[in-house]
Protein backbone atom coordinates (compact mmCIF):
# COMPACT_ATOMS: atom_id res chain seq x y z
CA UNK A 1 0.00 0.00 0.00
CA UNK A 2 1.37 3.39 -0.91
CA UNK A 3 0.50 7.06 -1.38
CA UNK A 4 1.33 9.17 -4.41
CA UNK A 5 2.46 12.78 -4.43
CA UNK A 6 2.57 14.93 -7.56
CA UNK A 7 4.89 17.91 -7.65
CA UNK A 8 2.94 19.54 -10.46
CA UNK A 9 -0.33 19.29 -8.54
CA UNK A 10 -1.48 22.69 -7.27
CA UNK A 11 -2.15 21.42 -3.74
CA UNK A 12 0.62 21.72 -1.17
CA UNK A 13 2.46 18.45 -0.48
CA UNK A 14 1.17 18.08 3.09
CA UNK A 15 -2.40 18.38 1.81
CA UNK A 16 -1.72 15.72 -0.83
CA UNK A 17 -0.28 13.34 1.77
CA UNK A 18 -3.30 13.90 4.04
CA UNK A 19 -5.74 13.47 1.14
CA UNK A 20 -4.08 10.24 0.01
CA UNK A 21 -4.24 8.73 3.49
CA UNK A 22 -7.84 9.95 3.90
CA UNK A 23 -8.71 8.23 0.62
CA UNK A 24 -7.17 4.94 1.78
CA UNK A 25 -9.11 5.15 5.05
CA UNK A 26 -12.36 5.97 3.25
CA UNK A 27 -11.93 3.06 0.84
CA UNK A 28 -11.23 0.77 3.78
CA UNK A 29 -7.75 -0.14 2.57
CA UNK A 30 -6.41 1.25 5.82
CA UNK A 31 -8.51 -0.27 8.57
CA UNK A 32 -8.95 0.90 12.14
CA UNK A 33 -5.89 0.07 14.19
CA UNK A 34 -3.63 -0.15 11.13
CA UNK A 35 -0.22 1.41 11.77
CA UNK A 36 1.19 4.23 9.67
CA UNK A 37 4.92 4.50 9.00
CA UNK A 38 6.98 6.98 11.03
CA UNK A 39 7.04 10.56 9.73
CA UNK A 40 10.77 10.20 9.05
CA UNK A 41 10.27 7.23 6.72
CA UNK A 42 7.57 8.89 4.60
CA UNK A 43 9.56 12.15 4.45
CA UNK A 44 12.68 10.28 3.34
CA UNK A 45 10.85 8.29 0.65
CA UNK A 46 9.14 11.37 -0.74
CA UNK A 47 12.22 13.55 -0.35
CA UNK A 48 10.27 16.24 1.52
CA UNK A 49 10.82 18.01 4.80
CA UNK A 50 9.90 16.19 8.00
CA UNK A 51 7.55 19.05 8.93
CA UNK A 52 5.56 18.53 5.73
CA UNK A 53 4.62 14.97 6.65
CA UNK A 54 4.20 15.89 10.33
CA UNK A 55 1.71 18.60 9.26
CA UNK A 56 -0.30 16.03 7.30
CA UNK A 57 -0.36 13.66 10.28
CA UNK A 58 -1.42 16.54 12.57
CA UNK A 59 -4.27 17.44 10.26
CA UNK A 60 -5.50 13.83 10.23
CA UNK A 61 -5.13 13.70 14.00
CA UNK A 62 -7.24 16.85 14.39
CA UNK A 63 -9.97 15.22 12.33
CA UNK A 64 -9.81 12.17 14.60
CA UNK A 65 -8.87 9.83 11.75
CA UNK A 66 -5.55 8.83 13.24
CA UNK A 67 -4.08 8.84 16.71
CA UNK A 68 -0.43 9.58 17.34
CA UNK A 69 1.22 8.24 20.46
CA UNK A 70 4.84 8.74 21.40
CA UNK A 71 6.83 5.60 20.85
CA UNK A 72 3.97 3.67 19.29
CA UNK A 73 3.71 5.80 16.15
CA UNK A 74 0.53 6.72 14.30
CA UNK A 75 -2.42 4.37 13.91
CA UNK A 76 -5.76 4.70 12.19
CA UNK A 77 -8.23 5.60 14.94
CA UNK A 78 -11.54 5.85 13.18
CA UNK A 79 -13.13 5.71 9.77
CA UNK A 80 -15.24 8.78 10.37
CA UNK A 81 -13.79 12.26 10.55
CA UNK A 82 -15.28 14.36 13.32
CA UNK A 83 -16.05 17.97 13.92
CA UNK A 84 -17.21 19.04 10.48
CA UNK A 85 -20.51 20.87 10.23
CA UNK A 86 -23.01 20.26 7.45
CA UNK A 87 -21.97 23.51 5.78
CA UNK A 88 -18.28 22.59 5.82
CA UNK A 89 -19.00 19.19 4.31
CA UNK A 90 -21.07 20.73 1.53
CA UNK A 91 -18.40 23.22 0.47
CA UNK A 92 -16.00 20.83 -1.33
CA UNK A 93 -18.98 18.99 -2.84
CA UNK A 94 -20.34 22.23 -4.24
CA UNK A 95 -16.90 23.14 -5.63
CA UNK A 96 -16.52 19.77 -7.33
CA UNK A 97 -20.04 19.90 -8.80
CA UNK A 98 -19.48 23.46 -10.01
CA UNK A 99 -16.39 22.30 -11.88
CA UNK A 100 -18.43 19.54 -13.55
CA UNK A 101 -21.23 21.91 -14.51
CA UNK A 102 -18.76 24.42 -15.91
CA UNK A 103 -17.14 21.60 -17.90
CA UNK A 104 -20.49 21.44 -19.70
CA UNK A 105 -21.55 18.00 -18.56
CA UNK A 106 -25.30 17.33 -18.60
CA UNK A 107 -27.07 16.53 -15.35
CA UNK A 108 -27.41 12.80 -16.06
CA UNK A 109 -23.72 12.41 -16.78
CA UNK A 110 -22.79 14.23 -13.57
CA UNK A 111 -25.09 11.91 -11.62
CA UNK A 112 -23.43 8.86 -13.20
CA UNK A 113 -19.97 10.19 -12.34
CA UNK A 114 -20.97 10.89 -8.75
CA UNK A 115 -22.54 7.49 -8.20
CA UNK A 116 -19.58 5.74 -9.86
CA UNK A 117 -17.10 7.44 -7.56
CA UNK A 118 -19.28 6.81 -4.53
CA UNK A 119 -19.68 3.15 -5.40
CA UNK A 120 -15.89 2.84 -5.73
CA UNK A 121 -15.43 4.35 -2.29
CA UNK A 122 -18.13 2.39 -0.47
CA UNK A 123 -17.61 -0.97 -2.13
CA UNK A 124 -14.08 -1.41 -0.78
CA UNK A 125 -15.01 0.24 2.49
CA UNK A 126 -17.36 -2.56 3.43
Amino acid at each position, binding site marked *: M*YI*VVDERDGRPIYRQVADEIRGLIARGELREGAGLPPVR*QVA*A*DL*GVNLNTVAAAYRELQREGLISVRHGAGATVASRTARGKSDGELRKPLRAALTALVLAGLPRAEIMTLVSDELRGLLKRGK
Partner: protein
Amino acid sequence: MSSTFVTLFVVDLALLACFICMPVMRGEDAFFGVRVDSETYRGEGRRILRRYWFWLVMTFLQVEAVGFVVSYFKGRAEFASVASPLLLLPLAALLYVIFYRQVKPLERVEEGQRFASSLKARRLKDYTSLALEVLVVLMTIVPVVLLVHYYPQLPERIPVHWNWRGEPDAWARKSYYSVFSLAATLVYLQGLILFIKHGLLGVKMTLPAEHTEEYLRLKEEALGFTLRFMDWMRLLVCVMLGGLAANVALTSVEHLRPLSKVVAVAAEVAGLMMIASALYMAYHFYATDRRLKTEAGRVYVQRQRDAEHWYLGGLVYFNREDPALWVEKLVGWGYTFNLGNKWGYLYLAVILGVPLLLFLPLEK
Protein backbone atom coordinates in the same frame (compact mmCIF):
# COMPACT_ATOMS: atom_id res chain seq x y z
CA MET B 1 58.34 -11.96 -7.72
CA SER B 2 56.26 -13.01 -4.75
CA SER B 3 52.78 -14.23 -4.12
CA THR B 4 52.08 -10.77 -2.69
CA PHE B 5 52.50 -9.33 -6.15
CA VAL B 6 50.12 -11.85 -7.67
CA THR B 7 47.52 -11.16 -4.95
CA LEU B 8 47.83 -7.44 -5.54
CA PHE B 9 47.58 -7.87 -9.28
CA VAL B 10 44.28 -9.65 -8.71
CA VAL B 11 43.10 -6.85 -6.39
CA ASP B 12 44.06 -4.24 -9.00
CA LEU B 13 42.31 -6.27 -11.69
CA ALA B 14 39.13 -6.30 -9.58
CA LEU B 15 39.49 -2.53 -9.11
CA LEU B 16 39.83 -2.11 -12.87
CA ALA B 17 36.74 -4.26 -13.47
CA CYS B 18 34.78 -2.09 -10.99
CA PHE B 19 35.74 1.10 -12.76
CA ILE B 20 34.98 -0.40 -16.18
CA CYS B 21 31.46 -1.38 -15.11
CA MET B 22 30.71 1.62 -12.91
CA PRO B 23 29.54 4.25 -15.40
CA VAL B 24 27.26 1.86 -17.33
CA MET B 25 23.79 2.10 -15.87
CA ARG B 26 22.14 -1.27 -16.31
CA GLY B 27 21.26 -1.11 -19.96
CA GLU B 28 19.52 2.26 -19.81
CA ASP B 29 20.14 5.44 -21.73
CA ALA B 30 22.12 6.79 -18.85
CA PHE B 31 25.71 6.60 -17.76
CA PHE B 32 27.98 8.28 -15.20
CA GLY B 33 24.77 8.97 -13.28
CA VAL B 34 23.51 11.17 -16.12
CA ARG B 35 20.41 10.45 -18.19
CA VAL B 36 20.80 11.29 -21.90
CA ASP B 37 18.80 10.90 -25.10
CA SER B 38 18.73 7.51 -26.75
CA GLU B 39 20.47 8.95 -29.80
CA THR B 40 23.17 10.68 -27.79
CA TYR B 41 23.74 7.49 -25.82
CA ARG B 42 24.30 5.42 -28.90
CA GLY B 43 26.43 8.04 -30.71
CA GLU B 44 28.44 10.55 -28.73
CA GLY B 45 27.90 8.65 -25.46
CA ARG B 46 29.37 5.40 -26.79
CA ARG B 47 32.43 7.28 -28.02
CA ILE B 48 33.00 8.90 -24.62
CA LEU B 49 32.56 5.55 -22.89
CA ARG B 50 35.07 3.86 -25.20
CA ARG B 51 37.60 6.66 -24.64
CA TYR B 52 37.12 6.28 -20.89
CA TRP B 53 37.70 2.54 -21.07
CA PHE B 54 40.78 3.02 -23.24
CA TRP B 55 42.40 5.46 -20.80
CA LEU B 56 41.45 3.29 -17.85
CA VAL B 57 43.12 0.19 -19.30
CA MET B 58 46.17 2.24 -20.32
CA THR B 59 46.52 3.65 -16.79
CA PHE B 60 46.14 0.17 -15.34
CA LEU B 61 48.84 -1.26 -17.60
CA GLN B 62 51.25 1.55 -16.76
CA VAL B 63 50.76 1.30 -13.01
CA GLU B 64 51.14 -2.49 -13.11
CA ALA B 65 54.21 -2.25 -15.34
CA VAL B 66 55.91 0.15 -12.94
CA GLY B 67 54.97 -2.08 -9.98
CA PHE B 68 56.25 -5.16 -11.82
CA VAL B 69 59.55 -3.59 -12.87
CA VAL B 70 60.30 -2.22 -9.41
CA SER B 71 59.39 -5.41 -7.58
CA TYR B 72 61.04 -7.79 -10.09
CA PHE B 73 64.29 -6.03 -10.85
CA LYS B 74 64.86 -4.18 -7.62
CA GLY B 75 63.40 -6.88 -5.42
CA ARG B 76 61.25 -4.28 -3.69
CA ALA B 77 57.92 -6.08 -3.42
CA GLU B 78 56.67 -3.58 -0.88
CA PHE B 79 56.63 -0.89 -3.56
CA ALA B 80 54.27 -2.92 -5.70
CA SER B 81 52.17 -3.88 -2.72
CA VAL B 82 51.62 -0.33 -1.52
CA ALA B 83 52.05 1.89 -4.55
CA SER B 84 49.97 0.13 -7.17
CA PRO B 85 46.56 0.11 -5.45
CA LEU B 86 47.27 3.51 -3.90
CA LEU B 87 48.16 4.86 -7.33
CA LEU B 88 45.51 3.06 -9.35
CA LEU B 89 42.51 4.04 -7.21
CA PRO B 90 42.99 7.83 -7.34
CA LEU B 91 43.99 7.73 -11.02
CA ALA B 92 40.92 5.68 -11.97
CA ALA B 93 38.71 7.97 -9.87
CA LEU B 94 40.26 10.99 -11.58
CA LEU B 95 39.55 9.53 -15.04
CA TYR B 96 35.99 8.78 -13.97
CA VAL B 97 35.42 12.39 -12.90
CA ILE B 98 37.07 13.82 -16.04
CA PHE B 99 34.80 11.77 -18.31
CA TYR B 100 31.75 12.48 -16.15
CA ARG B 101 32.37 16.17 -16.82
CA GLN B 102 32.27 15.46 -20.55
CA VAL B 103 28.95 13.66 -20.21
CA LYS B 104 27.25 16.18 -17.91
CA PRO B 105 26.53 18.80 -20.65
CA LEU B 106 24.65 16.11 -22.63
CA GLU B 107 22.19 15.54 -19.76
CA ARG B 108 18.48 15.37 -20.56
CA VAL B 109 16.54 17.08 -17.79
CA GLU B 110 13.39 15.17 -16.88
CA GLU B 111 10.10 16.81 -16.04
CA GLY B 112 8.94 16.64 -12.45
CA GLN B 113 7.32 13.29 -11.92
CA ARG B 114 4.87 11.73 -9.54
CA PHE B 115 6.39 9.71 -6.74
CA ALA B 116 5.05 7.33 -4.13
CA SER B 117 5.81 6.34 -0.58
CA SER B 118 5.09 2.99 1.01
CA LEU B 119 2.67 3.00 3.95
CA LYS B 120 4.23 -0.07 5.48
CA ALA B 121 6.39 0.86 8.46
CA ARG B 122 9.87 -0.63 8.31
CA ARG B 123 10.70 -1.60 11.87
CA LEU B 124 13.85 -3.20 13.23
CA LYS B 125 11.93 -5.96 14.98
CA ASP B 126 10.53 -7.23 11.67
CA TYR B 127 14.07 -7.79 10.45
CA THR B 128 15.48 -9.27 13.64
CA SER B 129 15.76 -12.88 14.72
CA LEU B 130 16.02 -13.31 18.47
CA ALA B 131 17.89 -16.63 18.20
CA LEU B 132 20.52 -15.03 16.00
CA GLU B 133 20.93 -12.05 18.34
CA VAL B 134 21.46 -14.37 21.31
CA LEU B 135 23.99 -16.42 19.33
CA VAL B 136 25.89 -13.33 18.19
CA VAL B 137 26.01 -11.84 21.69
CA LEU B 138 27.22 -15.16 23.14
CA MET B 139 29.87 -15.60 20.47
CA THR B 140 31.08 -12.04 21.03
CA ILE B 141 31.30 -12.44 24.80
CA VAL B 142 32.88 -15.92 24.97
CA PRO B 143 36.31 -14.92 23.52
CA VAL B 144 36.46 -11.91 25.83
CA VAL B 145 35.65 -14.05 28.89
CA LEU B 146 38.21 -16.64 27.76
CA LEU B 147 40.93 -14.01 27.39
CA VAL B 148 40.16 -12.39 30.73
CA HIS B 149 40.19 -15.79 32.45
CA TYR B 150 43.48 -17.00 30.93
CA TYR B 151 45.24 -13.64 30.88
CA PRO B 152 47.49 -14.38 33.92
CA GLN B 153 48.56 -17.73 32.37
CA LEU B 154 49.51 -16.30 28.96
CA PRO B 155 53.25 -16.36 28.15
CA GLU B 156 55.23 -13.17 27.48
CA ARG B 157 55.17 -13.80 23.73
CA ILE B 158 51.69 -14.30 22.30
CA PRO B 159 50.53 -15.08 18.73
CA VAL B 160 48.53 -12.37 16.93
CA HIS B 161 48.34 -13.79 13.41
CA TRP B 162 47.95 -17.27 11.93
CA ASN B 163 48.72 -18.73 8.50
CA TRP B 164 46.23 -20.73 6.50
CA ARG B 165 47.26 -23.96 8.23
CA GLY B 166 46.29 -22.46 11.57
CA GLU B 167 49.90 -22.05 12.76
CA PRO B 168 50.87 -18.74 14.34
CA ASP B 169 53.12 -16.65 12.09
CA ALA B 170 53.24 -13.29 13.85
CA TRP B 171 53.90 -12.63 17.51
CA ALA B 172 53.71 -9.75 19.92
CA ARG B 173 54.78 -8.95 23.47
CA LYS B 174 52.01 -9.67 25.96
CA SER B 175 50.04 -6.57 26.92
CA TYR B 176 46.37 -5.74 27.45
CA TYR B 177 46.54 -4.17 24.03
CA SER B 178 48.00 -7.11 22.09
CA VAL B 179 45.80 -9.66 23.87
CA PHE B 180 42.49 -7.86 23.60
CA SER B 181 42.78 -5.96 20.30
CA LEU B 182 41.21 -8.73 18.20
CA ALA B 183 38.33 -9.10 20.63
CA ALA B 184 37.90 -5.31 20.68
CA THR B 185 37.81 -5.27 16.88
CA LEU B 186 35.09 -7.91 16.98
CA VAL B 187 32.94 -5.90 19.41
CA TYR B 188 33.50 -2.77 17.31
CA LEU B 189 32.51 -4.50 14.07
CA GLN B 190 29.39 -5.98 15.67
CA GLY B 191 28.35 -2.53 16.82
CA LEU B 192 29.14 -1.00 13.43
CA ILE B 193 27.12 -3.52 11.40
CA LEU B 194 24.17 -3.19 13.79
CA PHE B 195 24.45 0.60 13.54
CA ILE B 196 24.38 0.46 9.72
CA LYS B 197 21.52 -2.05 9.77
CA HIS B 198 19.47 0.27 11.94
CA GLY B 199 20.26 3.22 9.64
CA LEU B 200 19.34 1.30 6.48
CA LEU B 201 15.77 0.77 7.74
CA GLY B 202 15.20 4.47 7.12
CA VAL B 203 16.68 4.35 3.61
CA LYS B 204 15.06 6.59 1.06
CA MET B 205 13.10 4.35 -1.31
CA THR B 206 12.47 6.18 -4.55
CA LEU B 207 9.19 4.89 -5.96
CA PRO B 208 7.84 6.28 -9.24
CA ALA B 209 4.05 6.52 -9.44
CA GLU B 210 4.05 4.21 -12.46
CA HIS B 211 4.67 0.50 -11.81
CA THR B 212 4.77 1.37 -8.11
CA GLU B 213 3.75 -2.14 -7.03
CA GLU B 214 6.70 -3.71 -8.87
CA TYR B 215 9.21 -1.15 -7.64
CA LEU B 216 7.95 -1.43 -4.08
CA ARG B 217 8.02 -5.22 -4.05
CA LEU B 218 11.49 -5.54 -5.56
CA LYS B 219 13.02 -2.71 -3.58
CA GLU B 220 11.63 -4.04 -0.30
CA GLU B 221 12.93 -7.45 -1.26
CA ALA B 222 16.39 -6.01 -1.95
CA LEU B 223 16.39 -4.15 1.37
CA GLY B 224 15.24 -7.26 3.26
CA PHE B 225 17.97 -9.25 1.57
CA THR B 226 20.59 -6.64 2.48
CA LEU B 227 19.52 -6.66 6.13
CA ARG B 228 19.57 -10.47 6.27
CA PHE B 229 22.98 -10.38 4.61
CA MET B 230 24.22 -8.06 7.35
CA ASP B 231 22.97 -10.44 10.04
CA TRP B 232 24.72 -13.32 8.28
CA MET B 233 27.91 -11.24 8.12
CA ARG B 234 27.64 -10.50 11.84
CA LEU B 235 27.57 -14.24 12.48
CA LEU B 236 30.57 -14.89 10.22
CA VAL B 237 32.50 -12.00 11.79
CA CYS B 238 31.82 -13.62 15.16
CA VAL B 239 33.20 -16.97 14.01
CA MET B 240 36.21 -15.45 12.27
CA LEU B 241 37.35 -12.68 14.62
CA GLY B 242 35.96 -14.39 17.73
CA GLY B 243 37.86 -17.55 16.73
CA LEU B 244 41.10 -15.64 16.19
CA ALA B 245 40.68 -13.70 19.43
CA ALA B 246 40.04 -16.92 21.34
CA ASN B 247 43.04 -18.49 19.64
CA VAL B 248 45.34 -15.99 21.36
CA ALA B 249 44.51 -17.92 24.53
CA LEU B 250 43.97 -21.36 22.95
CA THR B 251 47.38 -21.47 21.25
CA SER B 252 49.23 -20.31 24.34
CA VAL B 253 47.63 -22.51 27.01
CA GLU B 254 48.95 -26.09 26.92
CA HIS B 255 45.78 -28.11 27.58
CA LEU B 256 43.68 -26.02 25.16
CA ARG B 257 46.06 -26.28 22.23
CA PRO B 258 44.23 -29.11 20.37
CA LEU B 259 41.18 -26.85 20.22
CA SER B 260 43.12 -24.06 18.56
CA LYS B 261 43.49 -25.95 15.27
CA VAL B 262 39.75 -26.53 15.03
CA VAL B 263 39.00 -22.90 15.82
CA ALA B 264 41.58 -21.73 13.28
CA VAL B 265 39.98 -23.84 10.55
CA ALA B 266 36.51 -22.56 11.49
CA ALA B 267 37.79 -18.98 11.30
CA GLU B 268 39.30 -19.69 7.89
CA VAL B 269 36.10 -21.24 6.58
CA ALA B 270 34.16 -18.22 7.90
CA GLY B 271 36.56 -15.91 6.07
CA LEU B 272 36.04 -17.77 2.80
CA MET B 273 32.28 -17.77 3.33
CA MET B 274 32.39 -14.00 3.81
CA ILE B 275 33.97 -13.58 0.37
CA ALA B 276 31.48 -16.01 -1.17
CA SER B 277 28.57 -14.22 0.53
CA ALA B 278 29.75 -10.83 -0.73
CA LEU B 279 29.92 -12.22 -4.28
CA TYR B 280 26.43 -13.71 -3.93
CA MET B 281 25.15 -10.37 -2.64
CA ALA B 282 26.55 -8.61 -5.72
CA TYR B 283 24.87 -11.22 -7.91
CA HIS B 284 21.58 -10.74 -6.05
CA PHE B 285 21.64 -6.98 -6.68
CA TYR B 286 22.38 -7.66 -10.32
CA ALA B 287 19.47 -10.11 -10.56
CA THR B 288 17.09 -7.65 -8.84
CA ASP B 289 18.06 -4.98 -11.36
CA ARG B 290 17.32 -7.33 -14.22
CA ARG B 291 13.91 -8.14 -12.78
CA LEU B 292 13.17 -4.43 -12.30
CA LYS B 293 14.15 -3.84 -15.91
CA THR B 294 11.78 -6.53 -17.20
CA GLU B 295 8.88 -5.84 -14.83
CA ALA B 296 8.95 -2.06 -14.56
CA GLY B 297 10.96 -1.15 -17.65
CA ARG B 298 13.38 1.13 -15.84
CA VAL B 299 15.85 0.78 -13.03
CA TYR B 300 17.39 4.22 -12.92
CA VAL B 301 14.69 6.48 -11.49
CA GLN B 302 15.43 9.76 -9.77
CA ARG B 303 13.57 12.95 -9.06
CA GLN B 304 15.25 15.71 -11.03
CA ARG B 305 15.43 17.55 -7.71
CA ASP B 306 17.53 14.71 -6.23
CA ALA B 307 19.53 14.05 -9.38
CA GLU B 308 21.00 17.54 -9.10
CA HIS B 309 22.53 16.65 -5.75
CA TRP B 310 24.75 13.81 -6.96
CA TYR B 311 28.34 14.91 -7.41
CA LEU B 312 31.49 13.43 -8.98
CA GLY B 313 29.51 11.43 -11.49
CA GLY B 314 27.03 10.04 -9.03
CA LEU B 315 29.59 8.89 -6.46
CA VAL B 316 28.67 11.38 -3.74
CA TYR B 317 25.23 12.53 -2.60
CA PHE B 318 25.06 15.84 -0.80
CA ASN B 319 21.63 17.33 -0.11
CA ARG B 320 20.93 19.38 2.97
CA GLU B 321 17.21 19.58 2.15
CA ASP B 322 16.81 15.81 2.14
CA PRO B 323 15.87 14.31 5.52
CA ALA B 324 17.10 10.88 4.41
CA LEU B 325 20.44 9.72 5.72
CA TRP B 326 20.77 6.56 3.63
CA VAL B 327 19.90 6.65 -0.07
CA GLU B 328 19.98 4.14 -2.91
CA LYS B 329 23.21 4.41 -4.88
CA LEU B 330 23.05 6.17 -8.22
CA VAL B 331 25.89 4.21 -9.81
CA GLY B 332 26.68 0.70 -8.67
CA TRP B 333 24.50 -1.32 -6.30
CA GLY B 334 23.42 -0.94 -2.74
CA TYR B 335 23.13 2.11 -0.53
CA THR B 336 25.21 5.11 0.38
CA PHE B 337 24.73 8.02 2.75
CA ASN B 338 23.71 11.60 2.26
CA LEU B 339 26.71 13.74 3.13
CA GLY B 340 24.44 16.76 3.50
CA ASN B 341 23.07 15.13 6.63
CA LYS B 342 25.30 15.75 9.64
CA TRP B 343 24.70 12.21 10.91
CA GLY B 344 26.37 10.97 7.72
CA TYR B 345 29.72 12.12 9.09
CA LEU B 346 29.22 10.00 12.17
CA TYR B 347 28.81 6.94 9.93
CA LEU B 348 31.86 7.97 7.92
CA ALA B 349 33.98 8.32 11.07
CA VAL B 350 32.80 4.99 12.46
CA ILE B 351 33.40 3.20 9.14
CA LEU B 352 36.87 4.75 8.73
CA GLY B 353 37.71 3.35 12.17
CA VAL B 354 37.53 -0.21 10.80
CA PRO B 355 40.69 -0.34 8.65
CA LEU B 356 42.61 1.31 11.49
CA LEU B 357 41.41 -1.31 13.94
CA LEU B 358 42.12 -4.17 11.54
CA PHE B 359 45.75 -3.18 11.10
CA LEU B 360 46.50 -2.24 14.68
CA PRO B 361 46.80 -5.82 16.03
CA LEU B 362 49.58 -6.53 13.52
CA GLU B 363 51.89 -3.95 15.08
CA LYS B 364 54.57 -5.20 17.34
